[in-house]
């Protein structure tokens, strides 16, 4: 897939973000967070622009980007399926659920499918333990899941879009 998210327009937005945080102490984290909003991920090209903009060495920026799990060097799929693996969900059977989805999509947790349609994430506790086990597909929430619910939910998204 071409890097079509590295557009002139997005870089312009990034420059505005950098400008806005220019004089803030500890600006790197907010800038990276907003940059990821704009580009969907933080590839080297984006990190380089930030490095020049707020005068922080590339080595430091790369160190920070790879340290925090929410920053991603690669773009995510069209649909991100996040299965909560917090303790409450785990003891109520989240593991077989994540395995079932992995089997259906042919990708392991943390991976994105070759057609860039799905990313599967075994996520940290999202704090909705009353709905355990729970998963989200982009903004949509599916709670109190049983294994039998999974095929229908995944197939729905497989049929949608391209």
């Amino acid at each position, binding site marked *: 897939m071409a890097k079509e998210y590295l557009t002139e327009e997005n870089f312009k937005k990034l420059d505005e973000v950098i400008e806005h945080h220019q004089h803030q102490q*500890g600006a790197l984290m907010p800038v990276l967070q907003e940059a990821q909003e704009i580009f969907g991920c933080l590839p080297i090209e984006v990190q380089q622009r930030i490095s020049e903009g707020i005068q922080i060495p590339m080595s430091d920026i790369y160190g920070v980007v790879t340290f*925090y*799990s*929410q920053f991603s060097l690669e773009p995510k799929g069209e649909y991100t399926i996040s299965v909560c693996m917090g303790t409450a969900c785990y003891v109520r059977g989240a593991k077989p659920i994540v395995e079932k989805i992995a089997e259906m999509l042919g990708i392991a947790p943390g991976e994105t499918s070759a057609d860039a349609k799905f990313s599967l994430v075994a996520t940290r506790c999202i704090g909705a*333990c009353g709905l355990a086990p729970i998963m989200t597909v982009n903004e949509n*929430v599916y709670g109190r899941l049983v294994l039998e619910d999974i095929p229908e939910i995944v197939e729905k998204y497989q049929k949608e879009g391209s």
Partner: protein
Amino acid sequence: MDLYRSHVLVCGGTGCASSESGRIIDNFNELLIEHGLDKEVKIVKTGCFGLCEAGPVVVVYPEGAFYSMIKVSDVPTIVEEHLLKGRIVTDLLYKDHTTSETMNSIDEVGFYKKQRRVALRNCGVINPESIEEYIAFDGYQALGNVLTEMSPNQVIDIVKRSGLRGRGGGGFPTGTKWEFTQKAVGDLKYVACNADEGDPGAFMDRSVLEGDPHAIVEAMAIAGYAVGASKGFVYVRAEYPIAVKRLQIAIDQAKENGLLGEDIFGTGFNFDMEIRLGAGAFVCGEETALIASIEGKRGMPRVRPPFPAVKGIFDKPTLLNNVETFANIPQIILKGAEWFASIGTEKSKGTKVFALAGKINNTGLLEIPMGTTLREAIYDVGGGIPNGKAFKAVQTGGPSGGCIPAEYLDTPIDYDNLIALGSMMGSGGMIVLDEDNCMVDVARFFLDFTEEESCGKCTPCREGTKRMHELLDKIVDGKGTMDDVAKLETLAKTIKGASLCGLGQTAPNPVLSTLKYFRHEYEAHVLDHKCPAGVCSALLQYLVVPDLCKKCGICAAKCPVNCISGVKGKEVYLIDQDKCIKCGACMDACPFKAIKKG
């Protein structure tokens, strides 16, 4: 101000918002207008009610009718029957799990009876996005009192005398921390709030921020006055979008009303605050790692001393407290140190919020006085274990805590008792495990977590958690030896003693506590090659029970690896254990429940 004859409180916490409470609110508002009731009845979106199991929750006052598991399609019934005709919709009311009794009013619900709400007092009561409602419930009065009538030393004295200890897990005396920061020398000081609630299964800080964000704004301003700081940071997990949004609204409203900013209450005191988001690193809950993260660095802990009170954010003296700790402050100022100290046990004062989850009927948030026993929390408030299963253990303190077995259920909960049992209070996660949970598997689950979240700075934690995880994998796969169990124990003790920060020092707790109380389960995996709870798939066997088998052949047809043999109608089927991949498809397919796992 308009007077309404009825108030409808709809929970807008993360749990209920995930099951469409937003659409329920919209639907209520539309129908009220349709029926011309919008001047008589007010819909209030509140923070978390605590009883997440029953969500989405709707409470109608003045009756206090407690409707649970409400769907959008139930809204017309409530509007037409209850709000229009004054008849409570009995079918939709909350039913007690243990007694199956219908509860008419929220006051009758067992879940709330033993609770005492201090930190959560406004959660589920007021609209968190309205500063007026917070003020109507004595909000900002404590800040007013402090700024106009008290000296910083008097404030610190009250906090010290109250006996409040840090609610983030460590249990350090809060007043002492304030005093250290006040006495530290520096031209600039900061107050910071730790809202990086990373323990899986703990969501009390999120609920306070979602349900009563002004309490945190007020408490941080009070702390700022006491220690001499004019700037505050709140470090929140990015996974909590609703909490971030409501806290920002609260900060903006406080600024508009002159309760934050310059010359607050005309006293010359300045205090401003800002939110910083985390980016998914559990270790950032450790105070020095959190500070590094706010500064824009990798969130790695450093050696203490110097403590943050001396050298914190941008090297300035910094007071760092947890959300729940701050949530207690305004009440302590208003009601006095003696009132707070009268609740709880000798060494642990006040109340503590717990997030009760796992194998429990009433999943949710509860706030109970320190000294309440585990049994009261789990059975009286939590409603016990669902589906008639037997209690096995309660896991407290998240990945840093341990598993406490049934024989210690009558232990009064406080900081010191839990540590004596090999667990800890932590931030207040309380996960209940039943007979179907394998303790070795649970220990492995936590090691998987800490291994991944270890920042990598110190060797005992970075390498040690990995090795422990490998040993646990081996045991769970049925390849472990008793020598491995002994190695696991030695390794655990070394990591505990040699790690740099709290993450590493407590990471072995899940293993040590399960080894202490559930050693027989480890032995069963190693010596008998059996998982007593039937969880570890490598040790499972699927077996056909000959007496129940009707020789229909459905299991053989479903088996993906063709390892079930038999003759339809004539011969009992048999599973070839060498070929079986333990997928369980046969057991699910058998209409006669003739396949057992064991």
